[in-house]
Structure formats: C-alpha cells, structure tokens
C-alpha cells in the first residue's frame, strides 16, 4: 500500500515528462531543431521559435543571481557570525516565512511599486553612467520603460533572496564549532574565519543552495509575468522589455488558438522543465554531499 503510493510519486513525474513530450511533438515536427534557434514568434503566420523566451529566461535568472547571491550570502554571514544572539532566531524565522510568500505578491509589488521607482530613479542613472563606456552602453540603453528584463531580474532577486539566505545559513551552521574556535584561537579576524574556514568547508552546500535558488528563478512565473513586458525579441539592452518561457506560457496559453500555437507553448514548457531539471538535480546532488559530510 505505502509502496504503491511511493511509486505513484514516480508515476507523476513520468506523467509530467510524457505529457509534455507528447504535447510538444507537433511543434517539433513542424519546426524541427530550428524551434530552439529561431527568434520569430508570430501567431498570425504560425511561425514559432523559442530563442527569445529561452534567452529571456536565462538573462533574468543571471541578473537575479548576480544581485541575490552576494546579498543572500552576506545576510547569512550576518545571521551566523555578527547578529546579536537575541535577534538571531526572530530574524531567521522571518526570513524563512518570507521564503513562503506567494510569487504573485512579489509580482503585484514589482508592477506597482518597484517598476515606477526604477523607471524614475535607477534606470536613467544607469543609462547616464554607462552611456560612454563601450560595450556596457548597449547593455544599458534605450528609454527607461520601468518594465523590462532588468526589473524582472530585480524582482526575482528579491524573491530568491530569502531562499539563498536560509539555505546558506543552514549549511554555515554545519561547520563544527571547533574549527572556527581554532581559527579564532590563532588570531583570525571574523572575516578571515568566514573566508578561510566557513566558506571552504561549506562550499559544496552553498553552491547547492545557489543552484536551488537558480532553479526557482528559472521557473518563476507570476512575478516575472507582471513586469517583463512580454516582447518576443532579443534586445542587447537589459532595460528593454523581453519575455521568459514561463511568462510567455502564462500570458498566451489561454488565448492560443490552433494546435500548432498550443503545441509550441507546451514545447516551451518542456524546454523549461529540462533546464530546471538539470539545475535542480545538480543542486540536490551538491546538497546531498554536504548532508553526508555532516554524518547523518
């Protein structure tokens, strides 16, 4: 009985993969491998290519990780090494609670509060600062729309921040106190303890946590859908509107008419699933390694 239930979990995952594959066959039949490498996305002429969505997904996730990883690890260091013990538990709990807030909340906040703020203050400043630097000037170009790839990445960063923080804090706490005490004993500063003892000891786990956050950022739908602008093209500028796989599906699925359109959207879902599966599997393997190190 219990074994049947356990196998049912396997069947669910198998079902997910099977249904995505079967649903996306028409799209892959019609466009072949070009589906992944072309940018055109035109429902009127029934021509679909996934490249804009894929690149948007990857770009927003990279922006999110660039912002969230250093800050998340910084907060974790603050919580484990610097924070007064009285505040440690409440702050830790607060962060864990925030990790559970539904993504639609981050989306609505991003649309009504963050996007106008970025449009008014941050984006003009970015455009001004990098205008004369070759290379970067095209990354930060164009009018400040407020909504766009950069805003989406920023919202994602705030979303995955509690996630990365709480996992990094958990793995930091697996460091045996003896090691830290020994390092302090030979006269290390707090930073040297963190940099030379804590981080090397927990490197695998931290990478696992970051990958887990990345998996979440890649698949995140609602928060991104609100602020990305849903434009099917690849812009050099990260301030321009773009789209991601999940935002495309969320925006267009209920309006999709015609088998090829629907099938193309499902094919997008399959690509997203494959990407996140690889990232998440990698993250879990990393975290498993640190578990076994802990000797449970």
């Amino acid at each position, binding site marked *: 009985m219990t074994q049947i*239930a356990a196998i049912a*979990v396997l069947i669910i995952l198998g079902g997910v993969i099977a249904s995505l594959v*079967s649903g996306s066959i028409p799209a892959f039949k019609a466009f072949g491998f070009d589906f992944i490498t072309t940018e055109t996305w035109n429902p009127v002429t029934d021509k679909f290519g996934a490249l804009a969505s894929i690149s948007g997904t990857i770009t927003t996730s990279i922006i999110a990780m660039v912002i969230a990883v250093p800050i998340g690890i910084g907060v974790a260091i603050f919580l484990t*090494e610097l924070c007064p013990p009285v505040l440690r538990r409440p702050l830790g709990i607060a*962060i864990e609670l925030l990790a559970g807030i*539904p993504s639609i909340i981050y989306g609505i906040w991003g649309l009504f509060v963050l996007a106008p703020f970025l449009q008014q203050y941050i984006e003009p400043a970015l455009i001004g600062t990098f205008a004369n630097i070759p290379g970067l000037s095209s990354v930060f170009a164009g009018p400040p729309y407020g909504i766009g790839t950069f805003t989406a990445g920023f919202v994602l960063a705030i979303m995955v*921040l509690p996630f990365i923080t709480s996992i990094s804090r958990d793995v930091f706490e697996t460091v045996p106190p003896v090691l830290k005490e020994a390092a302090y004993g030979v006269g290390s500063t707090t930073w040297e303890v963190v*940099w030379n003892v804590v981080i090397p000891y927990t490197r695998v786990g931290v990478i696992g946590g970051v990958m*887990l956050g990345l998996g979440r950022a890649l*698949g995140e739908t609602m928060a991104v859908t609100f602020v990305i602008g849903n434009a099917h093209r690849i812009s050099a500028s990260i301030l321009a509107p773009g789209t991601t796989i999940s935002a495309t599906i969320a925006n267009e699925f209920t309006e999709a008419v015609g088998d090829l359109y629907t099938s193309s959207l499902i094919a997008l879902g399959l690509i997203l699933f494959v990407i996140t599966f690889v990232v998440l599997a990698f993250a879990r393997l990393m975290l498993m390694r640190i578990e076994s190190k802990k000797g449970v």
Partner: protein
Amino acid sequence: MSLYAGRRRSNSIAMTLCFAAAIFGLGFLALILGTLVWRGVAGLNLAVFTEMTPPPGNEGGLLNAIAGSLVMTIIGVAIGTPLGMLAGTYMAEYGRFSKLAMVIRFINDILLSAPSIVIGLFIYELLVVRMGHFSAIAGIVALAVIVVPVVVRTTEDMLNLVPTPLREAASALGMPRSHVIRRVCYKAARAGLITGVLLAIARVSGETAPLLFTSLNNQFWSSDLNAPMASLPVVIFQFALSPYQDWQQLAWTGALLITFAVLTLSIGARWLAGKTVR
C-alpha cells in the same frame, strides 16, 4: 603592525558589507509587506467578503474568488495528503535504505521545486484536453500534484525523528509492523505530520500559474466542480494587470488576504513543528 592594520581594515570592510546586505535584504522585504498592508487595507471592507467580483466601474467584492480558492485548496489538499503520507511512510519505515526509496527521494525533491507552471501544463494535457473544457476539477488535481511532494518530504522527515527504540519496544510487545506504524510512529510524530499539511496548504493557496489554464476563472458564483471556477490568485492576476483603478484596488486587497493567510499558516506550522522536535 601594518599587516595587522590591513587585516583589521579588510575585516571591517567585509563586515560592513555583510551588515549592509542584511539591511538591504531585510529592508526590501519589510518594504514589500509594508506596501501590501498600506495598499490592501485601503480597500478592505465588508463588501469584499459578501459580493461577487464586479465588472469594471461597479461595486463588488471577492466572494466568489475566496470561495473558489477555499474549495479547490481544501479538496486538492484532501486528495494529495493521503497519497503523500503513504509514500512518506514507505520511505521512512519500509524502504528507508532501499534503492527505490533513494530514487523516489531524489525525484520527490525535484518535483518539490519544479516550476508550477509545468504542472499546470501537465494537467492541461491530461484533463482539460480530454474533457474539452476548463474546470475546477482540473484545478484541484493540479493543486493535489503540488501538495504530494511537500507532504512526502515532511512525513519522511518527521517519521525519521521518531526514535528507533520506540519502534523496537512496540515490536517486542508483539505488535505487527502496520500497528507499530499507525499506533506508535504516527502518534509520536503527529504534530509534525500536521505541520506538513499546513505547509502544503500554505504552498498551494498562493499558487497561480497552474490554475491559469486548469480552473481558469469565473465572474460568477459557481459550485459546479465541472465548470470553471474563480480563485483568489487568478483574480489578482487579472485585476492587477487591468487598467481599471477599482479592479487594481481589489487585487491589492486580495493580495493582502492571501499573504495574511499564508503567513498565519506557516507560523502555525512552525509552532507545531517546534512542539514535536523539542
């Protein structure tokens, strides 16, 4: 001495940065909650709980969306929980070190953080296409699929916390294995098991993406599970992206309600979990 000063300086720079990171991160999160309360409370009144979602420009509330969310969440959790509990029990009690359990644990962890929109597509292919129309049933199944991995994980973790001598003692008294699990292990881990269910409810009550193309939405009151049904997150999504002021206000109020519900559930879950582990 200059070496020492340099080390001191890099230490204080690094620590200031960590401190700044904490302020920045926690500040943003506080800002989000603050905005939510500020904008949400403004639209909070009795009509929100007693009237249907309005056409733009009219008075109205969120009653059908709240009811739809409750119905789908409750039934979804009711389907997903027993399945998850049984699977978790298998992994903790029967097959703890078997190859099968290892594989399932891995797969379950993947499902746990798989993008929920993909689950929505799966149910769309499985149910909506076969039935030919969007329906609350499809939404419920989608939520159930999301519930399962959460419950599997907590059930397994909590049963693993039950001390082995307890099981040995019960077995020594001649209890069959199934009795040991039901009467002894479940009882010892009860608070933890409830925690898992609460966490699952908290998780699915904010889910939007999988409902977008399973249960869709409904402007009116509906108790027909075979028809499209409104839900709070989907209504928020639609209303927030609309150009109408009053719809946007309702979206903020709905967002406040969901956040409040989710936070209450997760605080309750933590409180219960704290009682188990002790």
